[in-house]
């Protein structure tokens, strides 16, 4: 408990520059997981960001925050796209544990930022 209070206090005291640097790290990690052929491999089917050799089975991932104001809806789409469309070709990253919960959250943050 004490530790938690200490951590929170520290976080509050962090200079703004440093915390946004941390956020950028998180996005960079999300990007790496999304591009990694053994993890997200989203580029197999989506044009996104500056990714090379994309496929075209799914729509380009852009302007995501405007299109998904609710981050949870975006997360649901990536965790199990078969809920919205049972015939989809997109793999269920959460449901089939292709990504850990932490990896999934990073991917969602990154995709949300596109």
């Amino acid at each position, binding site marked *: 408990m004490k530790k938690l209070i200490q951590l929170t206090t520290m976080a509050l005291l962090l200079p703004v520059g440093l915390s946004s640097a941390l956020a950028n790290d998180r996005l960079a990690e999300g990007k790496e997981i999304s591009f990694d052929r053994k993890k997200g491999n989203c580029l197999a089917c989506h044009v996104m960001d500056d990714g090379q050799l994309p496929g075209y089975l799914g729509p380009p991932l852009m302007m995501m925050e405007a299109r998904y104001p609710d981050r949870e809806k975006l997360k649901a789409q990536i965790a199990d796209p*078969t809920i919205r469309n049972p015939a989809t070709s997109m793999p269920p990253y959460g449901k089939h544990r292709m990504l850990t919960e932490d990896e999934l959250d990073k991917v969602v943050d990154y995709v949300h930022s596109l």
Partner: protein
Amino acid sequence: MKAITYLSLALLGAGAFAAPTYADPKADNEVMHEFFKKRFPNVEFAEFSNGVYAFDENAREQWLEIEDFPPYEDAVEHGQTLFETPFANGKSYADCFENGGLNIRQGYPKFDADSGQVVTLELAINECRTANGEEALPYGRGDIAAISAYMATTSAGEIINVVVPSDPKALAAYEAGKKLFYERRGQLNMACATCHVHSAGGQIRADILSPALGHTTHFPAYRFAVEDLVTIQHRYAGCNKQVRAKPFELQSEEYRNLEYYHAHMSNGLPVNGPGSRK
């Protein structure tokens, strides 16, 4: 009849693909052929034997250049030598097959009423060997693919005619193959149909997805990725692995039934094996 076809087409469009409670292979083919003719209106029917090269101009040009010096030529010659070399007992492959094994590819896989099993050409080749005291060849590539490829060349241009007799066991085998084709598998949760029906013509990374119609016409095929001639079931295993699903054994009942359904779908197309593919 028309109404049923349109209804099934509507189902196809919705991706529902409800398996009927009874097998009607002929109606299945009508639906599938109509679906692909609609999706690729500029592709002539016989061209479906050429996979993605039937509709992707760039890929086709490269492929035609390659076919000027076919990478499978040596393997076919080797296959012919093996085919014509008698076994230790003096008999040969010609003795095991109708018409001496020539011009028969278009009828395979066949349903064998005695065993109640689907017999692929590669299985029949090995059964011929063991019946004559020779060891079975390993499946997938190598000599078995070479012999099968040579046999395919003797059927060049013949129209595929895979028969599903009205024997409950044959229909059950066909139905099991069809089920496997539409069943989502592996961590990526994808069926053969996800890629080769619903997404046919679409692009995954740099790969354009070929339609399932015409898949079996040109096998065994030389694959540049493998640098070898491979059988169709070798390809099945590769596609299963892509979606992180455990492949079945080559020539297992599962894959033989799948090949039965898959090959029957291409009835009406010309044999053009071996082909060359990425």
